[in-house]
């Protein structure tokens, strides 16, 4: 045990090596997606042959890909807005509520986080067939808003965690209406929680593929469904460009969110 003499509590080298390997495993898929997107080959071979922007060109000019991208953005924006609206009001409603009933409501609102997506997808598909929502914008938006609610609820609830209810009483004793109190007292304090929740709801919808596969129609499919088809049906390498665009966009959004958040936190403390 040579290591034991080196420090009081050393970390063995093989442990460090394992952690580095695990860290690489986490980012491995991302490492492959980006180089693939510059391939000039028309297959999925790796390493990619040649260097070209052909796949990006196809992604941004081919109407089929552009339509899918547009559909995804519209669905995600609407679903995130709806989820943020109802999720934030629910978080405000649940704040400071104790007791069994409040706990049941919270569990109910969180249920889609633990239910397998495929079970939700199948149930929604069967019901939406009857309600004629399959392959429609309202269908996508409602389904995606429902699975986005838990993210908003969690982040707004945690933003409300440090919220002092005395402020509300102070505000109303000074004569402010509940709405005014919300806009001028509550809102600025929980804004970051709301934005975080909205971004998560957006990303969740934008990236959602299982439910979207069941709701798809030939005339209306989202980007993830188009990507799914490009692997299973068409063998279209444009998916590499699409993947790297999506990965870059989502990662930038998350990093910006995190950067803004951590700066605020250090400034506050």
């Amino acid at each position, binding site marked *: 045990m040579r290591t034991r003499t080196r420090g009081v509590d050393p970390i063995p080298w093989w442990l460090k090596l394992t952690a580095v390997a695990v860290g690489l495993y986490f980012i491995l898929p991302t490492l492959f997606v980006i180089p693939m997107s510059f391939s000039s080959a028309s297959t999925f071979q790796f390493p990619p042959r040649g260097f070209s922007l052909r796949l990006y060109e196809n992604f941004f000019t081919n109407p089929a890909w552009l339509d899918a991208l547009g559909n995804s953005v519209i669905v995600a924006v609407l679903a995130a807005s709806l989820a943020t609206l109802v999720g934030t009001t629910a978080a405000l409603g649940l704040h400071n509520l104790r007791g069994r009933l409040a706990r049941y409501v919270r569990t109910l609102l969180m249920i889609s986080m633990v239910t397998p997506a495929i079970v939700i997808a199948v149930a929604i598909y069967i019901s939406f067939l009857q309600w004629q929502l399959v392959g429609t914008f309202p269908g996508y938006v409602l389904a995606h808003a*429902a699975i986005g609610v838990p993210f908003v609820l969690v982040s707004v609830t945690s933003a409300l965690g440090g919220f002092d209810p005395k402020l509300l009483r102070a505000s109303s004793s000074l004569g402010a209406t509940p709405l005014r109190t919300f806009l001028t007292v509550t809102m600025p304090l929980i804004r970051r929680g709301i934005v975080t929740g909205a971004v998560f709801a957006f990303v969740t919808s934008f990236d959602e593929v299982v439910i979207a596969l069941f709701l798809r129609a030939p005339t209306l499919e989202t980007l*993830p469904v188009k990507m*799914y088809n490009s692997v299973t049906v068409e063998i279209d390498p444009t998916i590499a460009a699409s993947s790297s665009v999506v990965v870059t966009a989502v990662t930038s959004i998350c990093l910006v969110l995190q950067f803004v958040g951590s700066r605020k936190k250090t400034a506050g403390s």
Partner: protein
Amino acid sequence: MPGLARRRTPSPQWLLLLPALALLTVILLVPLGRSFSQSFGDTGWTLEHYKTLFTDGVTLTVLLRTAMTAAIVTVIALLLGYPYAYLMTRAGPRLRGIMMVVVLVPFWTSVMARNFAWIIILQRNGPVDSFFQLFGLNVVLYESVAGVTVAMSQVLLPFMVLPLFSALSGIDRKLLLAARGLGSHPVVAFWRIYWPLSRGGVVSGLILVFTLSLGFYVTPALVGSPQQSLVAQLLGQRTTQLLDFEGASALGMLVLIVTLVLVAWANRIGGTISAIGVAASAPTKGRP
């Protein structure tokens, strides 16, 4: 609602819950409830569809294969996640921040991009295959359960690392030093002191990863083989191809019940779901 009696204006606060409850009831609960009732037959009441699951010869095989795959993924996640979570507790604040960001990368990586990448990595003559060809071996994991396992472990590892990290950072390391000071071998000290203290995090991680593995649809469909499908594929197939809504509902309810029981168990042990939610929405949050 006895607790509310003391509040001056109890009703507006409950009204705030209505929009969310309405949305989730109509879009999730009603379809799931209809699925539940459909699983007992459209007309009359029968357990036939549940009985068929275990007697048709296919479903049971697929269920066992799914459980087996989930178990292997869970063990891999523990073996890789434990050292990583341990080193996170030992790293300085800056390195720990980086390690936390790396853990969360699978959350950010788009589902389709990730699965596409695994196809590239695992395909014939792909990077993994080429590497093993140097040793004269043919390792094509694409279109196999092994490939699905590799791809699933990667994305489920965060669900092991996060509860583990929160459990491990609560352990007082001085206990280990004391054990060593008293002459205990590091391995013995780990096994007798550290491991038992970390067991809460281990158990919630295990349950969480196993549970989430059961419902995977896209990865087995894209990286796996159609001949060796997992339960989610079977569920999808019964719904959209065979239009056997009652049979699909019964299978879906079985998966849902197993999942909810496991989640409730994990929740009892460590409040895992909310922990994951908080970690996911506040990525840089370090030690609680």
